[in-house]
Each structure stands twice: as C-alpha cells, then as structure tokens.
C-alpha cells in the first residue's frame, strides 16, 4: 500500500476542496502514476468514488486509519 508517486495531504479540508486539490495534483502527473490522498472529511469516501467514476481515474483502494481516509488513485 506504500506504493505511490505523489502524495496529497487534504487533512482538515472540507468539501469540495479535497476533490479540487486532487484534480489539480493529478493534472501535474503523468498517465499511469499513482496519487496517494489523505483526507479527514468523511464525505470524501463517497466523493472520491464518484470522482473516479466520472473522470476515468482509477481508485485503486481506500481505507480508514486513525480517523483519516486514505486513497490511492491511478491517473488515467
């Protein structure tokens, strides 16, 4: 699970900022690279699933760890 190319810490940020920051970070990455996202907004779980579905970026996995929500997303 430690494999990723870039990390985005969106802790403390609320909707829609985690999504907007993720979008911006993904834009600076190349296709196939993996972004690791850390968020504390519980709404981000559903939101990142929806974001992946609509943008084609693949949500590899997500888990909750000590009140944080961790996502790995592969850029399309």
């Amino acid at each position, binding site marked *: 699970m430690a494999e990723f190319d870039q990390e985005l810490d969106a802790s403390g940020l609320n*909707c*829609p900022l985690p*999504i*907007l920051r993720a979008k911006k970070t993904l834009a600076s990455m190349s296709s196939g690279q993996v972004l690791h996202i850390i968020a*504390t907004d519980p709404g981000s779980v559903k939101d990142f699933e929806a974001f992946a579905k609509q*943008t084609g970026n693949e949500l590899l996995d997500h888990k909750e760890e000590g009140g944080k929500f961790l996502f790995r997303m592969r850029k399309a």
Partner: protein
Amino acid sequence: MSDDKKLAIIATKGTLDWAYPPFILASTAAALGYESQIFFTFYGLQLLKKKPDLKVTSLGNPGMPMPVPMPVLAQALPGMQGMMTAMMKQKMKSKGVASIEDLRSLCLEAEVKMVACQMTVDLFDMSREDFIDGVSYGGAATFFEFAGESDICLFI
C-alpha cells in the same frame, strides 16, 4: 463544439450562506470535466464584487442553527447580523470550509465562465469596475445560448 458535459447555474442570492452552492458546484463540476457557466443576476451580483462583503442573517430563516435560542425581535437588534456573520465565518474556518474568495478563484482557475446580468448591473447602479476581472456581461439570451446546450441547469 466540445462534447464535454455542461453545467449552467443562475446565481440570484447575495448572502454568505447562499454564495456557497454556485461556487462549490461549478468548481466541482469543472474538476469532473464539465464546462460550467454561472449567470449572476440581482443579489447574486454581490458574489462578483472585488471585495465581497457577504453577510448571513437568521431573520426570516428559522432553520438557522442558533447557539442559544433567541426571540426573533432580539435577532433584529443592531449588531446581530454582524455578530452572526462573524460567528459563521469562524465556524467555517474551523471546519476547513473554503472562503468564498478562494472558491471563486478556484472556479476562475478552472475556467468557469462568469456572466453578470447587464440589466441588474444597471438597475443597481453598479459599475463594471466593482467586479473582478474575467466577468462578461449579457442578458437572458446570453444565458440561454449556453443553458440551452447544458446537461444540468440550476437556479440558486
């Protein structure tokens, strides 16, 4: 013409709370690949001011959560609106909610198109210099040009 999905929003409210939905939805839509446009009319024009001075009020809004129950007449006392606005801003900051200026910048960065209703700009004797750069001006027909092609159209 692009085959991106399109979101058209009419923003008519000029209060701090109602400033959020247009900018949250437009910026998120842009992140999802939508082409987005917001048409600002009547009090919604306040959201385009260079230094927006947006307030929140509990008057006429019994749904607003209050820290302590308060009779409506007391809510109308001088200074109450300022106090409620300060409390709301403080609350938003502590919860990691973006400021309106930040969300608006994110919209502009994401190429959300902002159109001010020329008729209401004139009606309220506002000047184009009051507004941020990047705003275009038009009327109802301008709105329909984009909205007619839109997949989602919201009146806020």
